[in-house]
């Protein structure tokens, strides 16, 4: 077809519903606000890894849907999560990204979470244990027993990640949420303790779903020289996408030929436990978390959406806790030569989604974004995105290709079943 005029450009493509979506899904502020309330405040999010807080009283801070969160390990070694908010007048309890409560702070005692503002103190279970001049100010009207922290559901699972949800009664347990997609990796990541060796973050002017889309489709391997030369073979093109309940997708494995990229080596020697050499599995969890095991190193991406056109992505790399320094260094090289901030692929992926973000700024004209490749669910089939947006429509009650319209009205039978 020659270049199109305006109405041709805006016309629906000759594809079935579900095979394309409306770009407002990636650019509209109201839709974004809705996503925070209806999705991010209700799902399980892997906020960090247990190896980031190995000792009693260690802590990490993070956030979900704008709510600040503190994760800490108690003297009983249990990891717990709380809102990082002081119940007195709303001060952020801990300002650092990480540290230990073993040390006392200028306003408070060791082994306590102390609010620096008026010195209220909390223990590792979130109990308020000290209110400065409690009786003098509150007499018997308010006591520390009733002003504990807001605790959050928190579980350590699937390779030692710390999962938190803001929802006290989540729709499903964490096991039901992600157990099935993790089945392909479970033996490998749960055989023994893992440890994070890599962390960096990117803040990109794009929608968080565009990052997840990129992680859910391999058609874009055309932009990665590395993946073309190490991947494109019969086994690669036979690689399958598997859709799971709750909008998750797994990309099945194949054997990567790393030696085909000049200067790179096989990763066989340091394969994760129970993983055949040079295999590569990818788990994409709704609404935007990715676990990627390339033989010798596990990568995990966690998105923190900041606006319809802004996302923070945290990148982690993990190896086995028992690695010798030599083994660890090899894993780090394997991970970072491709996936590091100065590696061969990650820079290209980020340029790709930043470019999409540029054309889908808030208030840009709505367009059709095609998700319609059908290749028997194999590697360049866009089934991963279709599956994701079907789930997205369900959670948001919006049709991805016409987001002002109700998903439930279009799917009355399923909506009725869900209501029961």
């Amino acid at each position, binding site marked *: 077809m020659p270049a199109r005029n305006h109405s041709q450009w805006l016309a629906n493509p000759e594809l079935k519903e579900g095979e394309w979506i409306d770009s407002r899904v990636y650019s509209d502020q109201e839709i974004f606000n809705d996503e925070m309330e209806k999705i991010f405040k209700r799902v399980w999010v892997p906020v960090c890894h247990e190896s980031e807080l190995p000792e009693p009283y260690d802590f990490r801070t993070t956030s979900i849907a704008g709510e600040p969160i503190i994760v800490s390990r108690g003297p009983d070694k249990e990891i717990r999560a709380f809102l990082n908010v002081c119940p007195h007048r709303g001060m952020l309890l801990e300002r650092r990204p990480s540290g230990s409560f073993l040390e006392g702070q200028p306003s408070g005692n060791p082994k306590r979470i102390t609010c620096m503002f008026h010195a209220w103190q909390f223990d590792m279970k979130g109990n308020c244990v000290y209110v400065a001049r409690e009786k003098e100010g509150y007499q018997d009207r308010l006591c520390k027993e009733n002003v504990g922290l807001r605790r959050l559901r928190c579980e350590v699972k699937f390779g030692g990640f710390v999962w938190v949800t803001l929802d006290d009664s989540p729709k499903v347990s964490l096991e039901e949420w992600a157990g099935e997609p993790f089945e392909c990796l479970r033996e490998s990541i749960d055989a023994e303790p893992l440890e994070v060796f890599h962390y*960096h973050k990117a803040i990109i002017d794009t929608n968080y779903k565009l990052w997840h889309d990129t992680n859910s489709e391999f058609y874009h391997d055309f932009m990665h020289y590395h993946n073309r030369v190490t991947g494109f073979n019969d086994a690669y093109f036979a690689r399958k996408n598997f859709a799971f309940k709750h909008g998750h997708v797994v990309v099945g494995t194949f054997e990567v030929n790393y030696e085909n990229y000049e*200067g790179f080596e096989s990763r066989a020697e340091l394969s994760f436990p129970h993983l055949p050499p040079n295999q590569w599995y990818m788990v994409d969890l709704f609404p935007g978390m990715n676990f990627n095991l390339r033989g010798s190193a596990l990568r995990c991406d966690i998105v923190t959406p900041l606006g319809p056109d802004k996302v923070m992505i945290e990148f982690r790399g993990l190896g086995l806790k028992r690695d010798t320094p030599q083994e660890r260094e090899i894993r780090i090289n394997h991970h970072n030569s491709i996936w590091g901030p100065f590696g061969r692929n990650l820079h290209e992926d980020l340029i790709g989604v*930043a470019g999409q973000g540029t054309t889908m700024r808030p208030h840009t004209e709505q367009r059709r974004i095609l998700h319609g490749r059908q290749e028997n669910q194999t590697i360049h089939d866009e089934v991963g995105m279709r599956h994701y947006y079907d789930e997205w429509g369900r959670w948001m009650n919006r049709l991805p290709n016409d987001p002002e319209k109700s998903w439930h009205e279009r799917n009355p039978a399923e909506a009725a079943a869900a209501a029961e």
Partner: protein
Amino acid sequence: MQKNGHDAASVVRDTIYRATMALDDQKWDDWLNLCDEEFHYRISAFSPEINKDMIYLQGKRKDMEGLVKLLPKHNTDHSPLRRHTSVYTVEVADDMSSAEAVSSFVIYQNMLDGVNSHLDSGESRLFLVGKYYDKFKLEDGKAKFVNREVRLDNRRLDKGSHWPL
């Protein structure tokens, strides 16, 4: 310092600044020509988030040669990276065969692509801040890099880069 030691220190300084210009101009071969066969390169940072020293990229001279040779095959942000380097200290070994230097650097991204080149091109944005920890072999009045550690303060790296820093 004796005359010789003083000369050696200025050769080291000069080599660091030549490397700065070669990297600024993406003259990768000129940069590698300042490096010994034994050269080892590493970009590192400390992450308080995970409480670990990290290596973001590393390689021997041969690896770096391969990396720059394949750059034309890779899609890359076109915005040049340019730096200010200040040599802080140069320590020449007593036997005058080697030297170590510490420099600070600030790398700017001079936008060509940006997010939207229509708006961003021409602007310079702070990209990376850190220190170079360099080791040199001194021979025939020349200083050759045997080691460069690019120690970054940044852990927020946004799009990152394909290029040696």
